[in-house]
């Protein structure tokens, strides 16, 4: 019982920080600040994964999201010179639409699962080692395995790496002549 209360306190703490940081991430006028807020949300999510007993996933979350994706976002912010620009305040109408749509979505979702009985949660005991089970499942060729999606996602990541290089590399025409006002080469766009 005591552990349940403790877990609940941790849950509410993580959830509150995550929600506050998420609001900061979408309303902050400095984009770099928004990215830092995103880091907080993602770290809190990693904490929630830990709370759910998904240790491996929490590690992946920190490594890939906080270590990789957010750094990438920071690069993007620098490369598009968004860091020194202050984001415009959204116009009144845009804000209204945003609040209406997001609020409606939240209300409908909340209504949906609060008015119907959710299946009872099974008690927590879990003997299997999650990380081992996860590895076995990802590379299992049986009917319950995920080896095909795993291979597809590997291929997707490879394609993405090549695609990113092709799209974002310096184009051949981007020489000093181009900097003086020559027409940029559009072949690669």
């Amino acid at each position, binding site marked *: 019982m005591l552990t349940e209360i403790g*877990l*609940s306190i*941790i849950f*509410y703490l993580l959830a509150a920080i995550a*929600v506050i940081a*998420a609001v900061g*991430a*979408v309303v902050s006028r400095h*984009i770099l600040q928004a*990215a830092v807020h*995103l880091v907080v*949300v993602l770290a809190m999510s990693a904490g*929630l*994964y830990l709370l*759910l*007993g*998904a240790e491996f*996933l929490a590690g*992946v979350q920190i490594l*890939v*999201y906080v270590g*990789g*994706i957010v750094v*990438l*976002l920071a690069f*993007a912010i620098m*490369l*598009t010179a*968004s860091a020194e*620009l202050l*984001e*415009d305040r959204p116009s009144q109408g845009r804000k209204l639409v*945003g*609040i209406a*749509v*997001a*609020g409606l979505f*939240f209300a409908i*979702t909340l209504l949906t*699962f609060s008015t119907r009985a*959710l299946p009872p*949660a*099974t008690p*927590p005991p*879990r003997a299997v080692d999650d990380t081992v*089970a*996860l590895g076995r*499942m*990802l590379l299992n060729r049986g009917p319950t395995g995920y080896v095909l999606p795993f291979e597809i*996602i590997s291929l*997707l*990541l490879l394609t*993405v790496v090549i*695609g*990113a290089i092709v799209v*974002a590399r310096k184009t051949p025409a981007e020489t000093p002549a181009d900097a003086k006002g020559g027409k*940029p080469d*559009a072949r*690669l*766009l």
Partner: protein
Amino acid sequence: MHAFFKLGAMDMSHWLALSALLFSIGLYGLLTRRNAVGILIALELMLNSSALNFVMFDRMLHPATVDGQVMAIFIIATAAAELVVAIAIFVALFKYRKTADVTRMNSLKL
């Protein structure tokens, strides 16, 4: 309203409410941001909240298997892939249009 306000991290509806709230916040950001990178940040919020749901359902309903966690891993990988492509496009676009404002990206020609 079965036990909706029951205190406890073991209550599914609290987790669902949290991820719905995070998703809604992301949706708001998606609709109000003008900066392309800001939109991507909002998008990451939404993807993250859906991954949280998968892990939560996996834990609460099928603790013996890890299918939900596998889904979460795929979501993270796909999110990374999507982000890389989007950033590459925006950086390339910024070279030519000198803007990251999506409301001004309204032409397919240069």
